[in-house]
């Protein structure tokens, strides 16, 4: 019965969590624990589809970026034929790092230790002293870079370390419908405005993942200044309004906040709105046009947010879109990667305005981001203590609500925006991964 390589304490906690989540209980301990972290590297990040890069980050042949899945550094490169490949960024000879930059362009990678050379598609093609040292006996084809399985949706490149993982399409399981709000801004779709900024935080990645699975509950308090000063187009009185949707069993969730009386797609330039009538389906249009805030998370650790920010108190503001990755680097420790996605076909001045709004609200110096992380490092600190190990948190919001009938999109949809249905789905999915195989 016992889970191999798992302590009795953690196994017990996971079993109780599996029972508890449907009843609205989640143990504090999962948010800061070394053993949980190490188990996640193997069971969550070793199994799930994890985000690597957006195609617009490597537009030309030879372009590459280096990213992470768990603690594995991965090269994501576009080969000369335009095909994208992902490989562990480790030389097969003695394990040196091949690409030491975050981005670049190269058709071949040459190792700086003994000089083995690989094509950007992973094949080993150069071995010094192949005659003298190897007597031609090394089978080059067996020693290419370690391949990582990839697939993509709407420009998002995902990778999985699990050869037996289901397809990305099945993994997303309908969440694509909602991702389009971020990825199909206008006919040309979305592109990154530039490289992400990233930073380290003493935060557990799961706290962020939960928050972006649709935590509309925190906004009026954690970002109270925005309401107070009139920089955010919502009010405490109506802030709970909107919808929450998740894909049962998959862990993905999104919150769609609605501000009564606001014009459709407010904060977008008209011509972009016009484009979206073509780029989006009727069901998407109906839903997204009413959406002030779209805050969603793809299990495990990729999030998105669309939201307006006002530069003048009270005006509806400018809508911006951010994509963020929570990269775990230790117990209660992560790297935050934050991108701004802009509509490819939007006017340049809108792109600039949206980017400015993004930097003012998100990214390391963003005023919303700042407050989120301040809260999150404190949650992480507190949940690491011995007393917290005995504590469950309540996840009962919307526990006995019925899902909405004839909701335009797939998945399990409820009203209002402020609820915890998405979180329960996130945690039951997470615990299933953690207990995999037992």
């Amino acid at each position, binding site marked *: 019965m016992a889970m191999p390589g798992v302590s009795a304490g953690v196994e017990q906690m996971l079993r109780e969590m599996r029972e508890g989540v449907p009843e609205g209980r989640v143990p504090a301990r999962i948010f800061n624990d070394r053993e949980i972290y190490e188990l996640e590297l193997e069971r969550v990040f070793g199994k799930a589809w994890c985000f690597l890069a957006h195609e617009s980050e490597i537009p030309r042949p030879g372009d590459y970026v280096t990213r992470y899945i768990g603690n594995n550094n991965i090269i994501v490169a576009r080969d000369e034929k335009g095909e994208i490949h992902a490989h562990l960024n480790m030389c097969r000879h003695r394990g040196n790092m091949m690409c030491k930059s975050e981005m670049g362009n190269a058709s071949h990678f040459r190792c700086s230790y003994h000089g083995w050379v690989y094509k950007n598609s992973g094949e080993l093609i150069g071995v010094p002293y192949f005659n003298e040292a190897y007597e031609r006996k090394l089978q080059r084809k067996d020693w290419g870079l370690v391949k990582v399985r990839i697939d993509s949706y709407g420009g998002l490149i995902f990778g999985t370390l699990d050869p037996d993982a289901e397809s990305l399409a099945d993994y997303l399981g309908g969440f694509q419908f909602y991702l389009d709000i971020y990825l199909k801004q206008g006919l040309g779709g979305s592109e990154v405005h530039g490289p992400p900024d990233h930073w380290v*935080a003493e935060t557990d990645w799961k706290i962020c993942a939960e928050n972006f699975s649709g935590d509309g509950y925190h906004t009026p308090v954690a970002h*109270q200044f925005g309401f107070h000063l009139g920089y955010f187009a919502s009010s405490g009185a109506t802030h709970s309004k909107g919808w929450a949707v998740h894909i049962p069993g998959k862990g993905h969730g999104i919150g769609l906040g609605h501000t009564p009386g606001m014009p459709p797609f407010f904060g977008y330039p008209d011509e972009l709105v016009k484009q979206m009538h073509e780029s989006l389906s009727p069901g998407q249009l109906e839903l997204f046009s009413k959406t002030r805030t779209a805050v969603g998370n793809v299990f495990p650790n990729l999030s998105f947010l669309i939201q307006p920010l006002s530069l003048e108190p009270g005006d509806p503001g400018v809508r911006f879109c951010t994509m963020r990755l929570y990269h775990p680097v230790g117990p209660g420790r992560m790297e935050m990667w934050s991108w701004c996605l802009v509509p490819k076909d939007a006017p340049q001045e809108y792109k600039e305005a949206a980017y400015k709004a993004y930097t003012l609200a998100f990214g390391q110096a963003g005023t919303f981001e700042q*407050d989120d992380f301040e809260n999150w490092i404190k949650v992480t600190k507190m949940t690491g203590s011995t007393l917290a190990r005995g504590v469950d948190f309540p996840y009962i919001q919307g526990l006995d609500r019925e899902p909405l009938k004839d909701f335009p999109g797939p998945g399990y949809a409820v009203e209002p925006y402020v609820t915890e249905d998405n979180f329960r789905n996130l945690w039951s999915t997470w615990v299933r991964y953690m207990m995999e195989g037992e």
Partner: protein
Amino acid sequence: MALRIPLVAPEIRDSIRDFLYLESLALDERRFRDWLSAFAEDARYEIPVRVTREKLAEWELSPTSRIFDDTKQTLEFRVERLETDFAWSEQPPSRTRHYITNVLVEPTDKADEFRVHSNCLVYRSRGDEPNPSIFSAQRKDLLRRAGDSWQIVHRWAAIDQSLINAHNLSIFI
């Protein structure tokens, strides 16, 4: 010789250096309104995103991505926020200390504007966390004479890290 740049009159250099010290004192004493007053109405405040690139890459400081991309108006947005009781990232406030060194002043083609190079090491401590954040930045400011003092027309600061070791940047550099 490349180690010589046209330097300016000692009084100007010293007065600008003192101005930078006064500016950072305002920050470190959290007199944010005083600090704002150091900026010209048309001021820009920029911190580019740094990317780890190979030696000869065309750029290391992203031409498009920024951590701060502010005007005086948006700086005021930030200061106004810090003045509320809900700026959680600064509640309790960070303890900062700006170490300004290597100040070099160059003339520009405008008689009343000067290009000012400085190194800025920012020490930041919060709560009972024993390990401070230390930020290192190269600054290139454009300063304009304002009466017998100065105003910042352009503050450009490049942080010397690509992965920044702090949970947020709720302070100024």
